[in-house]
C-alpha cells in the first residue's frame, strides 16, 4: 500500500529544503503518483543523481513510497 500524497510531499520537502514539490495521483486511487520536484540543488547533477537525492529524502519509507512512484526532477529556471 503506497503512502499518501501529503506524506510523500512532506518527506521530500524535509529532505530537500528548497524543493518545490507537486504530486499528482495518476488514477485518483492513491496507488500511482507522479512527483514533480524542482530544486536548485539539482543544478549540475545527472538525472540519476537528482532521483537519488529524492530517494534519499524518502529513506526509511522507500518500500512503501517507491513502487508506483514516478519521478520528474528539474532544477527550475530563473
Amino acid at each position, binding site marked *: 500500500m503506497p503512502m499518501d500524497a501529503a506524506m510523500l510531499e512532506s518527506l521530500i520537502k524535509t529532505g530537500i529544503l528548497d524543493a518545490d514539490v507537486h504530486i499528482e495521483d495518476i488514477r485518483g486511487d492513491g496507488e500511482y503518483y507522479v512527483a514533480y520536484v524542482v530544486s536548485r540543488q539539482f543544478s549540475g547533477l545527472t538525472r540519476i543523481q537528482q*532521483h537519488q537525492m529524492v*530517494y534519499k529524502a524518502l529513506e526509511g519509507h522507500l518500500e512503501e513510497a*517507491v513502487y508506483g512512484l514516478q519521478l520528474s526532477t528539474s532544477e527550475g529556471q530563473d
Partner: protein
Amino acid sequence: MQNEVLDRIRQDITENDVVLYMKGSAAFPQCGFSAAVVQVLESLDVKFTDIDVLSDPSLRQGIKDFANWPSTPQLYVKGEFVGGCDIVREMYAAGELQKLLAEKGLLK
C-alpha cells in the same frame, strides 16, 4: 554471499552491451514499469539481455545496492547504469537514449 551477487552483476553488465534487470522476462514482464522499458528497447530494435530479479531474492536486493537505486527495472549500457523506467522514458522522448545507443554503436 553479498559480494558474489555484486560480482555477478558487474560481470553481467561488462559482458553484455545492454542489460535490463527487470521483473519477469522480456517476453513475459511481471510489472508494468519493466514492460515499458522493454517496449522502448524493442521499438529501437536494440538487442538486450533481460535478467529476471524475481528469480533470485539475493539479486533482487543486490541490484538495488549495486546502483544505490531502490527499484527495478534498471537499464545498463556498456557497464553503466542509465536509469529506471522514468529516466529511460524521459531520455527516449527527448531522443537522448537513441543518441547514447548510437554513440556506443548499438543502434542498427
